[in-house]
Structure formats: structure tokens, C-alpha cells
């Protein structure tokens, strides 16, 4: 039987297995190879919070989904065309995500009695052997046996053999989707440089998978996905947290300041620490503190000394930092607070995404405590918004909260990375020394934007004290004067509002400046909303999309822009937070679409929700 080539515009694949099966690595390697081929793509890694949840069980299943295509790809796909399952639990957990008629590649060794029991299939039932999967194209392969045979001459331990079985599946998929193996081979040689026999084994198994596809004649066609028509330029693939780290490093270099990250490990923000810890040569110090509070306060201490103070965390950690962030508001020092949001409240679902910390960011401190908020819209956008967070924090001497989420932090996409010369310079001037005959230094004197000077220790003649007690205007001395408190409260608010003059105006991402419906999103929902609005516009609907990346303060033209539409729809992965801000700030009847399932919006579900809302509005 000869295979034919079938050209497809987009493909969604999901790798699923036990958390020890290496599915995240398999998915990432497939992603990198696919990116290098020039496809557009989006990924969705999904894994349990436990490092090794009980083996073989449904809670222990780890998955990695990606959609890639020759068209613009903005979501990881609602349903998959192909599902790889390494064991029974992986099938059980993921079958509902597979299209009717889709391909299942199942490792039959993961469907023995023990695995079926662990996955809680009824006694005697094996889905690979009954007709329950007749709606799909089922390909059963005993991967364990294949690996054993491929490595027959290598005399490896059972454990090392077993660990390489993900490479078999990867090789097979490379064959199915016409991808070259060289990027993965390079990776394996590099990763196992010190253990060449392990590298060799993995490469052997990878190739075995590939050649199995070629010779086994189980596929009637190979799938071709051509290069996407992206904007011309040089691209790399990047995850949100990686882009965030690069944005911070770039901002540190462009301001020529040292950066100090004070942090405490927490999912899904720890990769920011791992990333920055590698870049010491760029003048970056990372401090793994004893807790979230020390993480934030150490960053404030560094900022007092003239470094860019950064602290990273997720919602529960940001809750602990609240008092310290308030201190930074009072001290009027730069501080960048990174919140990679996850599902809450409390510990919630650490590895699942959510956008429910917006109100926490806006209001989650004691007293009137205004600060700035930015939110990246996609993995690659984390670069620009991290850069922006540092820039406006330094330029306005105020804390900035950067609201990413687990979905874009771990997800990846192609990134047309900038040249350093094209990045804005961030100009910083410390207050200079003063002599006895000079006017005394006033720590809380301000410029026309209400920004005070950064006056760092080591500068003669400007010795001064700051603190969390209310400041007297101009002098910064402790003050309990009623009128002064009113004045300072107003100043801190106005200072925040003035930042609106230093951020871009809100644009319409897609659609018209005025019209019937405006979908207003923020943060990680960008890809889903953009895809849905594109489809609805194609269907003839008068609908537009605007996406907020600067939330506090809002862009100056936001109100005017919204008033050009009859209906405002605000989809969010929370129970309605931006929508409440919009309503209370502008008295506009914005309507929410909400989902809190720890997953991003699917295209179909979001489209339907919008249609339902519009239907109601018309009725």
C-alpha cells in the first residue's frame, strides 16, 4: 500500500500519558520542530499539580495539546485530530476532546489488566478490544515491545528503556505529519551530552518510531501542513514565561540598571526564577527568599538602593505580598509584581489557568492604594508587557502588577523577536548630591507628572527617611494632618491616572471603530476572542474586538471607544471582574461571558456564548 499526501490547513494533536511518561517534553519537542518548519501554532500543556500522582490513574494524566497550521493559529484548538494515549487513564481522561473520526494512537502495553483497573474501567472491559472506539481511527501499537526490540543490542536497564518510549511516539508523529527529526536529535545529543548511551538510545527509538510509520502501512496518508503566512522576519518559538524573562532582561539593559528578583517558588511562576537565575551576566540578581513577603520586601529594599526590584508569584503569593505592595505605593519606589494567575481561591488548582486576580490587583490592599496594572495578551506578548511594566514602574516611581496566567505562561507561539536597537531606551536619572549651601532635598517634591525623585543611598547631602506612615506633602515627614492625608491620597490617585498619558491609546484589534457589538477582552483570552470574532465577521455579524493590555489606568480613549458600540461583551476566565470595573467606571451596560474551569475558552463555546448573548439582546 502506498501512502498519499494530504494537505491540511491546521491540525490539533494531543499527547497524553502518565505524568512520568514525558508527555510535556514530547509535546515541546514536536512544537519546536513544527515552529522551525514555519507553521503558526499555539500550545496548551496540562498537567497535574502532583509531581508523580498515583501512576496509571486518571488524576495522574499529563497532557500536551498543540494546534499548528498554515493559517493564523491563535488557540491550541478545541478538539483534536489526533490523540496519543500512553495508557488507559490517558484515554479515559482525554477521549472527549477528540473529534469524531479522529486518530487514536494507543500504546497497547498501557491497556493491560493492571492499567485498566487503575483507570477504573469495569472488570473485563478493554476499550481497545471492544467496539467502543469504532467512531475513531484506532491505531494500537505495543510501544513497550517496539522500544525493547529497538534497543535489543544496547543492554540498557529496564528503567532507561521505559523512559525512551515517548520518543517512539514522537518519531511516529514526525512521520505522520512530515516533520524532520534533526532538531530533536540535536536536542537529545545536547541534553544527554554526558550520557552518550542514553542519547543514542533515545535517538534509536525516535528513528524506530519514524520508520515504523514508514513501513508498517497502517496510515493511508501522511499529512502536510504548509508554512504559515506570517509577517516577514525572523522567528523563534517561545512560551509566555520565557518571553517574560527576556522582557525583564531587555528592560534592565535598556535602562542600564541592575535588576533584583526577590521571589519564592510557586506554580506556575517558578520558571521566571529559573529563567532569570541563568542571566546573571546581564547584571541580574535572583534571591530565593524565605517566603512571599520577604520576596517582595527584599525587592523593595533593592529598589530603594537603585535596582529594578521585581517579585514574581501567583495569586496566593500575591495575597501575602499585599502589605508590602502597599508599602511600595507609600514609598513611591519602582516595583514590578508578576502574578502568573492560577485557579483559586486559596490553593485552588495550581496548574490550571484563571483570570480571577484582577480585582485583587486593583483593590487587594488596605487603604486607598492605587497602582498600575498591565496584562499580556499572548505568550509572545509577555515580552513587550514585561518591558512595559518595568518602563512605567521606573518612569513613574510606582508599583506595577503584571497579570499573566498559567495558560499563556506555559503555552507557546512563534515570536518575531525584536532587535535590541528597536527597543525603547528607558532613561533614568537619580537625584544628584547636594552641598550645604544648596536648598535642602525634599524627598516628596514632584514633577508635573506628580513623580518624585529616585534618591538613592550613597548620594551625599540628600540623606532622608521614608516609611509606611503617611507622608507630609513635599517634605516626606510623618504627618497625621487631616488635610494632608486627603491631599496625599488625591496625589497618589492622580499620579496613577497620569500614567494614561504614557501608554498607548486603545486600538480596535479587528473590526470597526463604531458598530453594533464590541467584544472587550484582556489578558490570555486574546487568541480565542480573535478567532471567534474573525469567524463571526466572516458570517456577516457587525462585531469588533478590542483587547486591553493596560488596565490601571485604562487607556484615555477607552470610554469614547466603547460608546461607539451598542453592545459591549466582556468574556473572562473568572466570574466577572473586568466587566464590573467597566460598569462601575463608565456606567456602561457591559455584559459578561464567564468560564472558570481551569481551561481557556474554546472557540466553539465562546462563539455560541456570544451568539446566545446577541440573540438575547436582539430579543
Amino acid at each position, binding site marked *: 500500500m502506498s501512502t498519499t499526501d494530504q494537505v491540511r490547513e491546521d491540525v490539533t494533536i494531543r499527547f497524553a500519558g502518565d505524568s512520568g511518561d514525558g508527555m510535556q517534553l514530547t509535546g515541546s519537542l514536536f512544537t519546536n520542530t513544527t515552529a522551525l518548519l514555519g507553521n503558526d501554532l499555539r500550545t496548551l500543556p496540562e498537567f497535574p499539580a502532583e509531581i508523580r500522582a498515583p501512576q496509571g490513574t486518571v488524576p495522574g494524566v499529563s497532557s500536551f495539546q498543540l494546534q499548528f497550521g498554515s493559517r493564523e493559529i491563535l488557540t491550541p484548538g478545541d478538539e483534536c485530530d489526533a490523540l496519543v494515549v500512553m495508557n488507559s487513564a490517558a484515554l479515559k481522561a482525554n477521549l472527549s476532546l477528540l473529534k469524531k473520526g479522529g486518530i487514536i494512537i494507543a500504546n497497547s502495553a498501557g491497556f493491560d489488566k493492571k492499567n485498566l483497573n487503575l483507570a477504573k474501567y469495569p472488570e473485563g472491559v478493554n476499550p481497545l478490544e471492544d467496539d467502543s472506539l469504532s467512531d475513531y481511527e484506532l491505531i494500537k501499537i505495543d510501544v513497550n515491545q517496539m522500544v525493547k526490540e529497538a534497543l535489543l543490542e544496547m543492554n540498557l536497564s529496564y528503567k532507561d528503556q521505559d523512559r525512551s518510549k515517548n520518543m517512539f511516539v514522537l518519531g511516529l508523529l514526525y512521520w505522520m505529519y512530515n516533520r524532520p527529526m534533526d532538531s530533536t536529535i540535536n536536542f537529545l545529543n545536547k541534553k544527554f551530552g554526558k550520557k552518550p548511551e542514553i542519547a543514542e538510545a533515545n535517538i534509536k527509538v525516535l528513528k524506530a518510531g519514524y520508520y515504523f510509520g514508514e513501513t508498517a502501512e497502517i496510515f493511508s496518508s501522511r499529512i502536510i501542513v504548509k508554512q504559515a503566512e506570517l509577517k516577514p522576519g525572523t522567528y523563534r518559538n517561545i512560551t509566555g514565561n520565557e518571553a517574560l524573562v527576556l522582557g525583564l532582561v*531587555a528592560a534592565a539593559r535598556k535602562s542600564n540598571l541592575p535588576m533584583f528578583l526577590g521571589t519564592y517558588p510557586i506554580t506556575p511562576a517558578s520558571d521566571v526564577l529559573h529563567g532569570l537565575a541563568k542571566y*546573571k551576566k546581564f*547584571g541580574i540578581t535572583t534571591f530565593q527568599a524565605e517566603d512571599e513577603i520577604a520576596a517582595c520586601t527584599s525587592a523593595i529594599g533593592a529598589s530603594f*538602593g*537603585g535596582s529594578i526590584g521585581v517579585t514574581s508569584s501567583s495569586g496566593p503569593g500575591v495575597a501575602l505580598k499585599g502589605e508590602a505592595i502597599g508599602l511600595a505605593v507609600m514609598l513611591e519606589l519602582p516595583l514590578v509584581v508578576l502574578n502568573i494567575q492560577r485557579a483559586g481561591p486559596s490553593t485552588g488548582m495550581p496548574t490550571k489557568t484563571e483570570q480571577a486576580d484582577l480585582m485583587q490587583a486593583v483593590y487587594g490592599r488596605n487603604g486607598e492604594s492605587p497602582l498600575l496594572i498591565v496584562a499580556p495578551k499572548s505568550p509572545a506578548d509577555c515580552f513587550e508587557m514585561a518591558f512595559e511594566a518595568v518602563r512605567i514602574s521606573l518612569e513613574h516611581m510606582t508599583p506595577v502588577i503584571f497579570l499573566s496566567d498559567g495558560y499563556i505562561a506555559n503555552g507557546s507561539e512563534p515570536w518575531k523577536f525584536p532587535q535590541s536597537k528597536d527597543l525603547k531606551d528607558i532613561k533614568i536619572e537619580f537625584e544628584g548630591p547636594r552641598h550645604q549651601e544648596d536648598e535642602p532635598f525634599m524627598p516628596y517634591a514632584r514633577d508635573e507628572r506628580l513623580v518624585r525623585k529616585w534618591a538613592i543611598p550613597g548620594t551625599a547631602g540628600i540623606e532622608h*527617611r521614608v516609611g509606611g506612615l503617611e507622608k507630609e506633602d513635599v517634605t516626606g515627614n*510623618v504627618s497625621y494632618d487631616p488635610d494632608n492625608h486627603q491631599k496625599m491620597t488625591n496625589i497618589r490617585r492622580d499620579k496613577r491616572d497620569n500614567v494614561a498619558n504614557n501608554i498607548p491609546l486603545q486600538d480596535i484589534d479587528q473590526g470597526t471603530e463604531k458598530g453594533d457589538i464590541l467584544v472587550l477582552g484582556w489578558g490570555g483570552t486574546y487568541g480565542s476572542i480573535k478567532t471567534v470574532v474573525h469567524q463571526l465577521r466572516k458570517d456577516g455579524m457587525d462585531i469588533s474586538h478590542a483587547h486591553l493590555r493596560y488596565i490601571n489606568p485604562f487607556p484615555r480613549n477607552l470610554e469614547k471607544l466603547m460608546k461607539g458600540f451598542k453592545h459591549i461583551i466582556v468574556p473572562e476566565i473568572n466570574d466577572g471582574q473586568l466587566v464590573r470595573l467597566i460598569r462601575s467606571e463608565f456606567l456602561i451596560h457591559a455584559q459578561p461571558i464567564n468560564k472558570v474551569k481551569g481551561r481557556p475558552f474554546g472557540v466553539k463555546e465562546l462563539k455560541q456564548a456570544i451568539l446566545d448573548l446577541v440573540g438575547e439582546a436582539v430579543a
Partner: protein
Amino acid sequence: MSVETLIDNFVKEHEADLTALPDYSSKDFASDQDVRWCPGCGDYTILKQVQNAMPVLGIAKKDIVFISGIGCSSRFPYYMDTFGMHSIHGRAPAIATGLKTSRPDLTVWIITGDGDALSIGANHFTQLLRRNVNVNLLLFNNEIYGLTKGQYSPASPSGIVTKSSPFGSIDHPFNPLALSLGADGTFVARAMDRDPKHLKEMILRSHRHQGTSMLEIYQNCIVFNDGAFELFTDKKSRPQESIYLEQGQPLVFGKENDKGVRLNGLMPEVVELNDTITKDDLWVHDEQDSTKAHLLSRFFEHPSNGDGVKFPRPFGVLYAVDRPNYDKEVVAQVQHAKETQGEADLDALLSGGETWEVK
């Protein structure tokens, strides 16, 4: 080319100022703010002695930073004409760690109290000692919460009757020196507000130590816990009840220097000096001996107290050893990376390893 930030340049530029160090007097270190502690508070003496000690350090005012948490003592930075930060409750050690690690050129002092350091900030306090950041910590211990008007503190003795413990506190107190030694502190010392000369000496010793210097200062709260340390600090009872430690000297105390502490194995005992027991038989103080430091820190609750023997309360440096400083190590790592890892090429970083071209 390795990265030189604005701060690197700044520090280099301002290093020159050191050579032209003014001839400071203690008054130069007093700020223009009115001191707002209660009349008779022990804090006044400590402030005075810190201001007296400062001109001796040989450090420019611009390079000195006082960081405090919350509580009566934490108002301290406002009264010093140096850089200062009155921060939030318990967090001064963490703020100081961030500042000192990013700016090792500065001389950083932490001002804290028993509530601030041993309760809400006990985590940061112990972690600071463990890391041995090169800062000086002055722990004003008055065994009470003053600013919140008189609740028992984690250093208050069990049984103390306060507003929050009308039937007597059932909390077992921390022993700040034992806690510091347990946290692997490299400099652990005690002074008292009522002996300004010794206090100043201890402040200077704290400054000279490379690493975290933990100086506990017995400080009388005249309003909520008056006389808590009177036994040790009152001129009449002090000779019998207190002992001043001096490196290489035997542990002698008493009005007529007629008593001493002897070691019987690992058990200390109080002895009367006479013809048969002389100074040569006594325990000789060794700041670098951690076992002895632990014994000294436990003098007020030693098991042998059970038979009625009272040990004198030790003042002075219990323990002082050298260990690498966290801040210096961090800076060295960054410097090493700058020197050995090649050029800090932002464009190479942005492009990463694998890229592709779209035409």
C-alpha cells in the same frame, strides 16, 4: 564587554567621597525631627549611643542606612540623619537583605524590637542570621508590646499579667540569644540601656563584625513593663546578677569580684573565689566556642538553676566567628558570570538558539 550598570558607575563615582570624610560629631547624626518616645524610655539612651558611635565608624553619612520594622523602637530611623526606611512589621531583615545584596557598598543597620523580630518577623530574623548577610541588627528587647499599649511579647516571661493576659501569660518565651545561635548567627551579643559605655562598645563591635551582627539590648519600657531588667541593670544589684564577658578572661562577677563560673564537664557552676578556687579554675571566655556560647545563652534557664543556684546574666559578645557573607557571595557570583560567560549580548539572548525566517 561585561555589563556595567548605572549603579556600578554610581558607586565608583562616589567612592572618592570617602577620602574627604568630614570630621563628624554625634550631633551630625541627629535629624531635625522631634523624638517622640515616652519620657524616660530606654530608647533615648540607645539612640544617643548609636549617634555617639557613628562618628567613630569612619563611614560617610550618605553610605549609612537604618531600616526598621514596626513598634516603638522602629521609629528610630526618623531620628538619624542618614538614609532610612521605617518599613512594615517584622520585615526589616528582608528589606535589608535586598538592599545590602544589591548595594554591598552601604553600611546597613536594622532596628527592631522583641515583637517585631521574634514574633511577626521571626522567620526573617532567623533567615537573616542563617544567611549571614553583612548587616548589623539591634534588637531592642523590652519584653512587652509598647506601641499597641501593653500586650505580652514573645520574649515576656511566662505568667506575666498584661492587658492581653489578665490571668497570666501561658506562652513560653523565646530566648533571643539562644534563638540566634540556633539560627547559626555568627555574632551574638547583649548589652543594656543602663550601661551606655558598654553599649557603645558593643555597637562598635557589631559594626566591625563581617556578617550579621545580632546585638540584643535590654531596654526598659517605663510605661508598660517598668523594671523588667532592673535586677541586671540596677547599679546595686548588677554586680551580683550580671557578668560582663571579655575575650580570654575568666568569668568573674560579684561586688568584690569574688564569684566566678566554673565548668564541670559541660555543666557550669557558680563558685566563690577563695584560696582553693582561684581565677585559674574558672571558665575562660572564648567567643569562637559555640558550645560555650550555647551554655552562656542558657544561663537564665539552666537546669542547675533548679537547686536555687542563680547564674549571672551575661553581657558582651557571646559568640563571634567568621563565615562567608551572603551578600558578598551573591555579588561574586554575578561578577563571575559577567567575567566568564562571555558578552552580555542582548540580541543573542533574544534570538535564542533556533530560529527560522519568514520571507
